[in-house]
């Protein structure tokens, strides 16, 4: 079965042209542990790719490599068809690959505006090594990005610790939108969220395509993955075991595929 669906998906790739981001034969060894067997993975333009698999299936390893947090043992990454080396998450971010982690990568004590611009602060002026941030611009642009998501937030100086879990994930999504990321990797973004907030985050993810942002959506909830994705990749024991267009499968199929593995 898996051979079958893999070939179908390969045809779909050809139809979409050069992928935005592609992993070619990447694998990862952690000491003697082979967390990821040689794997191809790609994200096309205006595409949301669902990534499913049980814990330890290699999903996290794969996305950590795409996010620049880890280096592959073998294989390489291509962005817009060109081979790239990602030495850090910063390299990946510079190439337009932004990651939203399940634990919510924000600094709770800091304001929304400061959080959005961490590591990419707009500078008003510099005195040698002293680079002074442009606070007006940070507040203004943070507010603008947050407003597009209808969060009901009116003050970009609010500390993130005052926000709900869903609002926090939304601010992270706003951050990715602000920096015009090409690909957003969402690693279980709805973990620890209430049902209402989960729906909100799913809505925002679905709207990413309006902004020409592609996404990799990772979740244990097959209903969510099926609803969100254009294409779904399933992994088990470090292998890609299936790759299928959303229309080809049902939620039940997804459960069966993962259950069989």
């Amino acid at each position, binding site marked *: 079965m898996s051979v079958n669906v893999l070939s179908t998906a390969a045809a779909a790739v050809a139809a979409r042209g050069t992928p935005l981001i592609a992993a070619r034969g990447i694998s990862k060894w952690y000491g003697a542990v082979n967390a990821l067997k040689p794997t191809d993975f790609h994200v096309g333009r205006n595409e949301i790719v669902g990534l499913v698999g049980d814990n330890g299936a290699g999903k996290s390893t794969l996305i950590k490599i795409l*996010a620049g947090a880890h280096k592959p043992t073998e294989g390489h990454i291509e962005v817009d068809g060109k081979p790239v080396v990602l030495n850090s998450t910063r390299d990946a971010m510079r190439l337009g690959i932004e990651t939203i982690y399940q634990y919510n990568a924000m*600094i709770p004590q800091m304001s929304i505006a400061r959080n959005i611009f*961490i*590591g990419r602060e707009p500078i008003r002026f510099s005195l040698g090594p002293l680079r002074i941030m442009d606070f007006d611009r940070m507040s203004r642009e943070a507010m603008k990005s947050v407003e597009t998501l209808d969060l009901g937030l*009116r003050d970009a100086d609010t500390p993130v610790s005052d926000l709900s879990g869903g609002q926090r994930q939304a601010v992270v999504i706003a951050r990715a939108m602000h920096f015009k990321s090409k690909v957003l990797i969402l690693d279980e973004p709805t*973990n620890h969220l209430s049902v*209402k907030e989960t729906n909100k985050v799913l*809505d925002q993810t679905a709207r990413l395509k309006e902004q020409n942002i592609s996404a990799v959506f990772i979740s244990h909830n097959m*209903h969510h993955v099926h609803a969100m994705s254009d294409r779904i990749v399933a992994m088990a024991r470090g292998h890609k075991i299936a790759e299928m267009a959303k229309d080809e499968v049902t939620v039940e199929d997804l459960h069966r595929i993962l259950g069989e593995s």
Partner: protein
Amino acid sequence: MNTAPGVPGRRKDAGGQAASILHASQLSSGLKPTSRKSLWSKAISKPEFSAFLMLVAVFAAFQLYTGFFLSYANTRLLLTILPELGIVVLGVTILMIAGEFDLSVGSVFALVPMTLHALTARYGVDPYLALVLVLGLALLVGYINGAVTLSLGIPSFITTLGMLFVARSMSIVAVGGNPLALADYPFGDVLVVNFGYIRASLIWYVGLAVVLGVWLHASDFGNWIFATGGQAQAAKDLGINTRRVKITAFMLCSLLAGLAGIIQMLRTKAPLPSMGTGLELEVIAGAVIGGTALTGGVGSIIGAIIGAILIRSIDNGLVMSRVNAEWFRTALGVLIVVSVVLNVKAGQFFSRRR
């Protein structure tokens, strides 16, 4: 795991109604009042504010009790001894915001001036060259503290506790058995010359506080310091080199401790290898009283200044009140606990009111 059976269907079309209900509930859940908060209520919810109130109370109490606490002579004395503690508190505060500790500042406070003294008085090294060398030594101590902590994954509490003993022992070794007279330092005046009411050291303190305040609160690197101490993993994932941020803070902390030690040696003209003993805890107390969180990510230069003034005022005020000076540590201990309780409770009070 959230199971929302309705989700697949409501993705685009059916989502509208649900979303509008969501908005209403989110608005009423209380984010709106945050934006209406006045500058005043923002200010009083800051931890520095309760420290400032305590400072006013302490000033008033000592003035009423002694009648001369705020006199020209006594404030002059306070401003003479303040910078030596205050400069160290600046460094420790920034390091604590970055999420690390330094228990070795008291020993570095001695090691740096003692090495300066030994180099010039014993080995006849040019004072300027010696100054450059010992400031380099301070940076090296900070680098070792940071590199050992981060490379080996040891808590900085332990690394710098070790450095506390090493640096103290080395400062005694540096001076050796037979005490030597202090050499003549051409840069002595620049650091400590007496202008009458104030000394040059106060100008250095204020200057350093302003520069470091701007650096910490308004520069991109300052943003990274807060991010690193607030949530190191998140900062790393956002592309911040947290190792570089922390090592910079360690080096700055040691450098300021060494500079403060030199200032004290030049002011007292007494090269004592025991100077700065116990200082590490006083400066951490100063940082904490000024609103710096032990867990990192929270603190300010204003708080560091208020904390240092409070500690020096209580020390001095008790002496002036002719209270047995041994009560100082009791007062300090109570003050630390009270200020942290106030900070925590004030924070809870204001976040509940929002």
